């Protein structure tokens, strides 16, 4: 929990800095976060390599691993319908499009904004950021109530990169492999699904 609070305070500090009148331009440069992400992924790769037995799991499971991203897509769609019932003043299509970002906020936001709906794009950005933050902060709770696959589902497309370290920390390297696989499938799906829903 302490770790999650530190993460949250870094995010809030970032919000405050970003809201200042004069934001240092190097902070708004995408390159810094991109390269940090690459470094993070490399480190995550190393921690997967530390566990020499974890490859057996993928060999044992075969096609069953594909069920994980499939279930996540279905569950997210069901969740979108529930959210639509509650929000009321938003078309179901828009809710589906936001949900289909699976936490991949940069891509889903760009696609939705480019398809002519910048406000919905902002909703998608915020919603998918929140999904990522919920995963970063809520993984211990998700594991306790829904099992070790739950943070993989909650993380969605981010399960292969930003939320992967947290998932590995609270489950195991084995679930890290599943997370990378599931995250990759969902990452590839996001542009197709969002475009398909928006047209």
């Amino acid at each position, binding site marked *: 929990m302490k770790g999650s609070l530190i993460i949250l305070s870094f995010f809030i500090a970032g919000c405050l800095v970003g809201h200042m009148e004069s934001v240092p331009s190097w902070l708004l440069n995408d390159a*810094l976060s991109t390269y940090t992400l690459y470094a993070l992924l*490399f480190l995550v790769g190393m921690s997967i390599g530390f566990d020499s*037995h974890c490859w*057996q799991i993928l060999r044992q499971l075969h096609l069953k691993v594909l069920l994980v991203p499939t279930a996540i897509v*279905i*569950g997210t769609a069901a*969740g979108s319908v*529930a*959210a639509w019932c509650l929000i009321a003043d938003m078309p179901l299509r828009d809710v589906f499009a936001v949900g289909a970002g699976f936490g991949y906020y940069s891509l889903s936001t760009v696609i939705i904004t480019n398809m002519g709906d910048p406000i919905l794009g902002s909703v998608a950005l915020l919603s998918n950021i929140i999904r*990522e933050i919920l995963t970063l902060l809520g993984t211990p709770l998700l594991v306790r109530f829904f099992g070790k696959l739950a943070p993989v589902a909650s993380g969605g497309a981010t399960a292969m990169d930003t939320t992967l370290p947290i998932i590995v920390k609270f489950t195991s390297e084995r679930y890290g492999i599943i997370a990378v696989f599931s995250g990759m499938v969902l990452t590839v799906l996001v542009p197709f699904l969002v475009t398909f829903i928006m047209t």
Partner: protein
Amino acid sequence: MLITVLCILIGIPLGFIFRNNKHVVSNVNRLTMWAIYVLLFMLGVTTGSNKTIVSELGTIGVQAACISVFCVLGSACAVFLLDKLFLKGKLDER
């Protein structure tokens, strides 16, 4: 996408080579946390500097939070059922 996967793939053999070196393992864990901190900070900067989001934070925020909470719960329930009905704990087997 390609670079993303490549970064992980380069790390795995290196991690395998250094798996018994406690010094490397602890440093990798520490650096991982710092990389997450930097990313979340940058995410905050992007959110805070977006004028549309800040000015309509009320409506947009409630809608966005509602969608993400239900998507998280929905997908968590789905994999919970998947594990209970189909996989039956097979992911934990050695």
